[in-house]
């Protein structure tokens, strides 16, 4: 069997996991060269713009130089003004994501598990999906008022569709052969769901949730744009109305950081459950 073992290359497999897995000691040593390369262009642009403004070639009134944005961001954070906004936006996205994600998972599972549900409900959902979600804004405002409910509902709608579609496709795509193995070994319905169906759909579920969360961040901007007294989106509106482009760009940066952090959180939480994947590692 040694020949087989060598042919399969288990050692290289284990090493690849060790390099990719976030939990193993030594995995924290990050190779900074690609990071530096990726940052080169935006940093260069920022430096050039900073130099042009400092040298007096540009006023920087509409496009403030990086130093001014940094100062604005620092002041917002330092004065404590930023944090209630971050908290409000994160709470809205969290509530909308929870609501849209949960209903998306439930209806996705129901639609794939019960053909009658799929035939009955899926055409309607597909029809609703064709509506650009921002078109809901006036209706939601009328129905649900101008406060939190309408905002969370709008975010939930944005999260729902990608999660619903992703989960339905994942359950329908579960390998029949794996389910057959479960039947032959007489797993109970609960064990079948827990030990075969759930792990089988987990990779697609993670992708669906990440897509949904991305849309959640998109929709929170729209929701806060349509009227809010706090939230990062409010900082955008405020910056526009009072002519403070540095505040707008600072708010955009905060959105980017929050979105990235939330996405990384999903990836981190799911990683231990996905270690079994013999996946292409992305051409390292």
């Amino acid at each position: 069997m040694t020949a087989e073992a060598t042919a399969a290359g288990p050692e290289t497999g284990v090493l690849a996991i060790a390099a990719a897995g976030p939990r193993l000691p030594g995995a924290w040593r990050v190779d900074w060269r690609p990071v530096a390369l990726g940052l080169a262009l935006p940093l260069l642009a920022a430096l050039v713009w900073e130099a042009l403004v400092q040298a007096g070639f540009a006023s920087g009134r509409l496009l403030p130089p990086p130093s001014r944005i940094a100062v604005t961001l620092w002041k917002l954070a330092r004065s404590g003004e930023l944090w209630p906004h971050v908290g409000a936006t994160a709470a809205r996205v969290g509530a909308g994501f929870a609501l849209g994600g949960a209903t998306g998972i439930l209806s996705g599972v129901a639609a794939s598990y019960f053909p009658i549900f799929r035939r009955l409900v899926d055409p309607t959902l597909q029809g609703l999906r064709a509506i650009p979600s921002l078109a809901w804004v006036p209706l939601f405002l009328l129905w649900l008022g101008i406060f939190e409910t309408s905002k969370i509902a709008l975010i939930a709608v944005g999260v729902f569709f990608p999660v619903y579609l992703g989960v339905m496709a994942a359950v329908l795509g579960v390998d029949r052969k794996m389910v057959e193995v479960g039947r032959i070994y007489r797993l109970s319905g609960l064990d079948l769901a827990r030990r075969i169906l759930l792990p089988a759909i987990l990779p697609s579920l993670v992708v669906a949730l990440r897509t949904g969360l991305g849309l959640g961040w998109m929709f929170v901007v729209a929701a806060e744009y349509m009227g809010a007294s706090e939230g990062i989106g409010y900082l955008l509106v405020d910056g526009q109305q009072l002519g403070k482009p540095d505040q707008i760009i600072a708010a955009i940066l905060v959105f980017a950081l929050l979105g990235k952090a939330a996405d990384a959180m999903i990836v981190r939480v799911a990683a231990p459950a996905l270690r079994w994947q013999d996946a292409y590692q992305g051409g390292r």
Partner: protein
Amino acid sequence: MMVPLRAVETPDIPDEPPMAGKGLELAFDGITKSFGDAAVLKGLDLTIPAGQFVAVVGRSGGGKTTLMRLIAGLDSPTTGAIRIAGTARRGLQPDVRLLFQDARLLPWQRVLSNVGIARGPGWKERARALLAEVGLADRAGDWPYVLSGGQKQRVALARALVTEPGILLLDEPFGALDALTRVDMHRLLTKVWRQHGFTAVLITHDVAEAVALADRVLVLREGRVAADIAIDIPRGTRAAGNPRLAELERRVLAAV
């Protein structure tokens, strides 16, 4: 269909009868199976005694895999009944296990959990014992994807045996393996069959494999048993060049 005319060498397998054991008798009473208008099995009547090793050969579409799925209880016969140890059975059978052509290990469970998929008290110890029996005791903690094709099939064999089935069905389990690995698997299968004493039904398109391993070869053709040939030479003498083996192989080939 291409049937390789190659004898399988099994020189070091001693010819002893299997241990009297847990094998169950398997009988078909007028089994037919149709899918829509297409009749795949057209009346099977035969009995496989407890502990016998039967090979079923035949061309693609001859009904081999359908027969296997009926025995396992994955499908039901259109008419007729399958009797296990004398009683008619329907639905999935706890004492029948199936080894597929692809090992069908769950990729998200480590080797030990795959072998012990049926769980139950003390499953880890039993799974470890079976892994040792198929020579993979040291791979218990590995993910399936690091195993070779032959190793995966060994794990699947251990998984099938962990619940001590009375009947083991093998659906072309060695078809995708290279020739050397296949010889290893033939030895291993013969060994565990002796030790555990189950009734074995091996589906294969490889006539040489069938006559090398089985007590009896059934040829399925167009949904019927076209030949029922006893391989009446000891396993230890089934080496290439045995004239009796060659003759039996010719008879099977003629019936296919």
